[in-house]
């Protein structure tokens, strides 16, 4: 009897927690299928009406395209730089290595608002206009520390001898990197790339501060929200959420592949 009550209590608690986390998203997604003009109960759908509107809106679709572009390019750059930094720290003796490593990961703890403001001021002073490129650089700044931390943590000493063996067998340094180090660290590289993609995809503050005419999807959604809630925002929000889920799944896949080995 007691055990049954305990089980019920645990289940209720779990339900409450997951409800707390997912209920807002569920509501968002549900009302994106609303047939009428207001995303409020009662539910009148399901209807794909608002998805059609969203996909017909060139401002939204070009923002979506911009977001994907910025996410892909900034993540690729962040991973490349993060890998090289990790490799440098793991394989070479650098003076003040601990301090330098701390500095490289420091942006992880600084708020995006501060980073965005700093870059806005810097770009203004340097005469670099607000643009997608500026926002992309901002995303590299926030994602590089993450990529570095993930890849560095996986770059253990057990790979030192593997790289040595490659050198011993006649590989020049760039071949050691591309034929041995990168393939061996592939799961970590893959994971950090998709994590960067996810963060860049969702990022608002820096994109908001650093872009002007062409902008990314989160900023465009914010523009929409200024004219009040309607199922269109729900629809585009659901799309963004869907893409994030795909990234998360890919990330999971990368880690799963790793743990099976």
């Amino acid at each position, binding site marked *: 009897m007691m055990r049954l009550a305990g089980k019920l209590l645990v289940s209720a608690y779990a339900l409450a927690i997951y409800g707390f986390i997912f209920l807002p998203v569920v509501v968002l997604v549900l009302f994106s299928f609303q047939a009428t003009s207001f995303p409020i109960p009662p539910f009148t759908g399901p209807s794909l009406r608002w998805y059609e509107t969203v996909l017909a809106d060139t401002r939204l679709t070009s923002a979506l395209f911009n977001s994907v572009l910025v996410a892909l390019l900034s993540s690729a750059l962040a991973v490349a730089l993060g890998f090289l930094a990790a490799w440098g720290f793991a394989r070479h003796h650098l003076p003040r290595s601990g301090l330098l490593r701390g500095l490289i990961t420091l942006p992880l703890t600084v708020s995006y608002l501060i980073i965005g403001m700093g870059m806005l001021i810097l770009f203004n002073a340097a005469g670099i206009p607000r643009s997608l490129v500026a926002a992309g650089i901002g995303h590299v700044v926030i994602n590089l520390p993450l990529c570095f931390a993930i890849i560095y943590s996986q770059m253990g000493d057990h790979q030192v001898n593997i790289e040595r063996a490659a050198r*011993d*067998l006649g590989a020049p340094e760039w071949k050691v990197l591309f034929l041995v180090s990168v393939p061996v660290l592939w799961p970590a590289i893959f994971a950090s790339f998709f994590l960067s993609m996810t963060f860049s995809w969702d990022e608002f503050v820096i994109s908001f501060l650093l872009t002007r005419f062409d902008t990314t999807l989160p900023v465009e959604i914010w523009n929409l929200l200024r004219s009040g809630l309607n199922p269109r925002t729900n629809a585009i929000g659901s799309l963004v959420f869907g893409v994030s889920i795909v990234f998360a799944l890919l990330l999971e896949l990368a880690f799963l592949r790793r743990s099976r080995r």
Partner: protein
Amino acid sequence: MTGPLVEIRKLSHSFGGHRALDEVSLHVEPGSYTVLLGPSGSGKTTLLSIIGGFVHPDEGSVFIRGNDFTRTPPAQRPTATVFQDYALFPHLSVGNNVGFGLRMRGVARAKRVGRSREALAMVGLADSYHKMPHQLSGGQRQRVALARSLVVEPAVLLLDEPLGALDLKLRRQMQDELKALQKRVGTAFIHVTHDQEEAMALADHCIVMNDGRIEDQGPPERVYSRPASRFSATFMGESTLLSGKVLDLGTDEIRIDTRVGLLSLAGAGEPGFDVSLAIRPEHITLVPEPGSVSLGEAAVTDVVFQGSFKRVSAVSAKDPGVAFIAKLRSSQPVAVGDTVTLYASPAEMVLLSR
């Protein structure tokens, strides 16, 4: 070819404040199996890393086939290394692991595959070409590592504790295979180990190292039977050490005042000199034999049954600082706490001055 294959001249190297190698010089002959034997921290691995090009020495030089390779990176050396953890490329198949060195040398694919298969067949893994390294056992990975290093036809193969990660039985088996393989390919092997049995079984030339220096080197039989130093006498097999002073010289004989009594034996020395006598465990007996002398009474402190013999430890009654180690026939009745009289022949004792 004349002259040694590898010549090491006065190598010294320090890590931080620690002197890992101290003016080490040695020769490696073509086609020989050289074993560097020593405890951890003796500098043997550092020496191997310097020959392989992974460490550049502070002083001294490395000549291979008469050319100075001291500061040449590993990729451009005629050496190949088998690492203790094998260091196989986990993302490449066994065949591509073996073919890696040939690929780096620009050998065409078809030829590469052929030679890799030959090398794998040589180590008895002909059917593992398409397997991945993680599908192989430790002993098989070891063989792949060997094939990978031998396929590039190095002038000298360097093996860093290659059997260290294997269990004892497999280790003894791989040991025999290594020796047979070396005889077959004829490449000079330099093998680092801390296992003296491995060293004795494999070496044509055994180099005993301690504290960054070479203590002794030569054929393993000589190093075992006539060790050159106290360290060598106790590290390459066990020994009982009797320290003493040279008393006086006779004709061809000297008398030594040891802590268990006066002993006369053939040899040379100067009166007043501190020396040690090393006696191998198999030369100590419980009963007098022709030519043997008494080493005095001793209390047995430990008896370990090891099948064909008993390993007996005993402490001298005259001086508790003298510890005897004897290998006695298993049938000999001896137990802990017994007081026994030990005998050894002066002809079997080795006079050591360092």
